[in-house]
């Protein structure tokens, strides 16, 4: 290959490259200081690397989109999703600095895997080629399998990793098979060329349907659509909470980014056919997610099912399949990153105080507002935002998605989505009610506020998330303007 070609437009992958170099430096540093305790240094390095990644993304922000070697593109959508993933990554690193013994012991492995996952996720949104997409998927999936089993002494964590790995590997095979069929149908692995071939009546259209169906299983697993969601609650509950926080946002953003790009750039001519099945999946996902979340007693499982329901909401945007819908999805994910990571951060603090080391029961939170007024207020804001109460960020995410879907003529789907939001308010509100309105029976009159069971880095995450949720909510126009969809 011509070397000039290799470097032409390589700027597209600048953020990924920055992170990749960063990971290598991180691993070297880990080797050099082997034997020393603690991994604060590595955590700080990771933060710096991720911030450099954000800087690199901002550098190519606003330039005309260019494509690199038929494999990756730097359009507004890719950059928006990348920003969401990098933010989730930074917040995730901050959360991991909470003196978890397992992470402190093996910081080098933990943070390099964390950064690798970020690289894979970012690549998902950038890929314009089924092969690159698959590589990206595997990079972040493999990293996450290991990260979810990082608490090696905790059976639940091991179970989570095993379950995630086996089911994930299974889903990957579906994904590969689907890609192969699409390649057969369109004669190319490149999205735009698949579209060209199919739209002009060439290729082998009979393979399109099975290809879409199999890809759908793969994506459905990653974004946890019903009925491919069974792993989600177990993995979310078993995995170390900082990992859960990071992957709940990162995986969703990455997989949806890939999903949007495949469906909207490779298969737009089949939109009429795939929209309805996806709409049905969206209804199932929202409804099952919300109704099951109602019955959860563990905070992390509740958040897992709530995450499933949110995936259903974002899927509505894909069903609409317009440029406005994809930018609405980017906004949704941007808002979701802050409110969901924020909620998990508070959960980490609360599980230190009330729970076992890696989870907390909702009923134990009674009276938490008296003892941790700041934490409770933060949790209340995140819960209200997740349930879509204005003027918080979550409301405008839903608003934009519903608006785009209605514009595309999916009124019935929007009605179901709106009603589902109303259902979801119940379980989010229940956390608030437990913390604020119920009394702690064991402690009784112990009303004096206790010191925060949270490290300084957790506090930073909470403060940043609250500010983001409120500012995005009060000035949504600014961000809606910034975050771009496909073809914008």
């Amino acid at each position: 290959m011509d070397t000039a070609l290799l470097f032409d437009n390589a700027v597209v992958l600048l953020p990924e490259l920055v992170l990749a170099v960063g990971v290598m430096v991180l691993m070297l540093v880990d080797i050099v200081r082997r034997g020393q305790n603690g991994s604060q240094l590595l955590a700080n390095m990771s933060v710096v690397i991720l911030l450099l990644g954000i800087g690199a993304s901002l550098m190519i922000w606003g330039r005309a989109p260019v494509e690199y070697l038929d494999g990756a593109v730097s359009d507004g959508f890719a950059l928006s999703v990348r920003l969401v993933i990098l933010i989730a990554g930074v917040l995730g690193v901050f959360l991991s600095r909470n003196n978890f013994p397992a992470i402190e012991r093996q910081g080098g492995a933990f943070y390099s895997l964390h950064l690798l996952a970020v690289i894979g996720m970012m690549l998902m949104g950038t890929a314009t080629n089924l092969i690159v997409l698959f590589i990206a998927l595997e990079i972040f999936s493999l990293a996450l399998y290991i990260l979810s089993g990082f608490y090696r002494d905790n059976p639940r964590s091991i179970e989570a990793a095993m379950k995630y790995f086996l089911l994930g590997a299974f889903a990957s095979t579906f994904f590969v098979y689907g890609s192969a069929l699409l390649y057969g149908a369109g004669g190319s692995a490149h999205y735009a060329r698949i579209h060209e071939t199919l739209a002009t009546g060439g290729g082998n259209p009979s393979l399109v349907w099975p290809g879409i169906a199999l890809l759908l299983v793969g994506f459905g697993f990653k974004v946890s659509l019903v009925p491919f969601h069974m792993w989600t609650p177990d993995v979310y509950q078993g995995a170390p909470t900082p990992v859960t926080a990071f992957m709940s946002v990162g995986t969703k953003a990455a997989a949806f980014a890939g999903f949007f790009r495949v469906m909207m750039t490779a298969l737009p001519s089949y939109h009429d056919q795939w929209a309805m099945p996806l709409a049905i999946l969206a209804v199932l996902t929202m409804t099952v997610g919300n109704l099951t979340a109602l019955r959860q007693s563990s905070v992390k499982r509740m958040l897992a099912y709530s995450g499933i329901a949110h995936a259903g909401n974002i899927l509505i945007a894909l069903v609409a399949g317009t440029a406005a819908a994809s930018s609405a999805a980017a906004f949704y994910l941007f808002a979701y990153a802050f409110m969901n990571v924020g909620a998990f951060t508070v959960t980490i603090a609360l599980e230190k105080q009330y729970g076992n080391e890696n989870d907390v029961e909702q009923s134990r939170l009674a009276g938490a507002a008296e003892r941790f007024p700041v934490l409770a207020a933060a949790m209340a804001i995140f819960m209200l935002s997740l349930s879509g109460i204005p003027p918080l960020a979550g409301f405008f995410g839903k608003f934009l998605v519903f608006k785009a879907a209605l514009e595309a003529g999916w009124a019935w789907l929007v009605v179901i989505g709106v009603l589902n939001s109303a259902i979801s308010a119940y379980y989010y509100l229940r956390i608030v009610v437990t913390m604020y309105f119920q009394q702690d029976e064991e402690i009784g009159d112990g009303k004096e506020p206790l010191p925060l069971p949270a490290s300084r880095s957790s506090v930073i995450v909470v403060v940043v998330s609250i500010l983001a949720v409120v500012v995005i909510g009060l000035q949504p126009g600014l961000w809606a303007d910034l975050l771009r969809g496909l073809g914008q």
Partner: protein
Amino acid sequence: MLSTLTFLPVVGAIVVLLAPSDSLKKWLAFGATIATFVVSLLLLPGWQEIPDMQFVERYAWMPDLNIYYHLGVDGISLWLVLLTTLLMPIAVAFSNQHIKQNLGGFLALMLLMETAVLGVFLALDLVLFYVFWEFSLIPMAFLIGKWGSQNRIYASIKFFLYTLAGSALMLVAILALYFNSGTFDLLALQEAGLPPGLQQLAFLAFALAFAIKVPLFPFHTWLPDAHVEAPTAGSVILAGVLLKLGTYGFLRFALPLFPVAVSDYASLISILAIVGILYGALVALAQRDLKSLVAYSSVAPMGFIVLGIFALNEQGISGAVLQMVNHGLSTGALFLMVGMLYERRHTRLLKDYGGLWASVPVFSFFFLVVAMSSAGLPGLNGFVGEFTILLGTYKSSPIFAVFGTAGVILAAWYLLHAFRQVAQGALTNPANFKGKLPDLNWAEIGQLLPVVLLFFAIGLAPNFFLDKINPSVAALEVVQTPVVGDSWLVDSSFVPPPTSGNLSWTSIH
């Protein structure tokens, strides 16, 4: 001006939360509500008696999506804004005396509540309106759930979910309007007009949200729970102001935007309102708990207001607007007095009282005046509103007016029943004897006096108030093109005189 008015309470809330001591928090919160009241009074000197929006403010909020920060006030919202800003300092003053637990949080929530309500009354962009509308739920749910009585958690969740679910479809309808006309701006939408098919669906979605808020029978079941469990100041604001959001919604959004659908459903909604009037009054009569009685007594007058709105003529609607203010004042005062009594005796059961005139004459006197205002005694405010509404209702449908009048009689019955049980009869319960039960102190009289003075002001000089309401009401499309109904209940022979040339109010005098 309107932004200052709307967001002054938020500033107050932040300052209150940061203030170091409880006594300082009390003064700051009271000061913030008084300042807001003063700012709202400044609307009056520059007021023009025209139908248009005044003091309009409009800035781009989400310019890409055509969403604007658009505030304005007209004759329909003016008095509701003033009602809100007047009741707030009273409720805060009462709470300052009686709330012991976590006072700062309570006052901050009250102030946030004020911002949300003022925002709803002033917003002219549908998205902005929806944001304030939904946001108003949060402080109220917290006020009930945290500071309410025994069953507060249930009441709080019920209130929150009921009203939230009710307004979910309204969001879809707002989006549908946007895709029809390309704007979220109320005035622009009004001008553009909407196709009848969309009007029907959108009206149903809006009406559900408003009917739950009012509450219109049969959507009223959240109200008694919320009222009875809420702390006194919460009840005052809930009954005095929050319920008005529903009727205001009908007036501000449903009537101008969906005139066709409104005239189609006017009879149905009027019938629901009448059922609510009669049912609410009868249930109120059967209550043993004074606060439940007052709570149920909100269902009936609110039904009355809805009846006036859906008479779809100038008298009915102007009366409804005035009656919204009247009901806010009188029911707010009733809840306040129930609260004063409860703080003294810690019981709300009617059987624990009786003969209070002998032991606490000042309290009983105020109670009588407030009850009479509620019952619509001529010379007081309630009469003007009820009479005007009945006049309007009679014009559009005499049968409805007959039922409405029956409601007035029932209202007088349960209010006098309550007064008799509390203040008259023999003073038998030793806990109520003179000396044991303190009479109203100066602070409490100070809280009640402004409201009672307004009773007389509105009752004796209604035109001062109606003159500001009327131009905006007369400009409503449903008023200008009288409904010649397809229903047998609507008197189709009546055609009101043209109102365009002569906007002055002449029916009472």
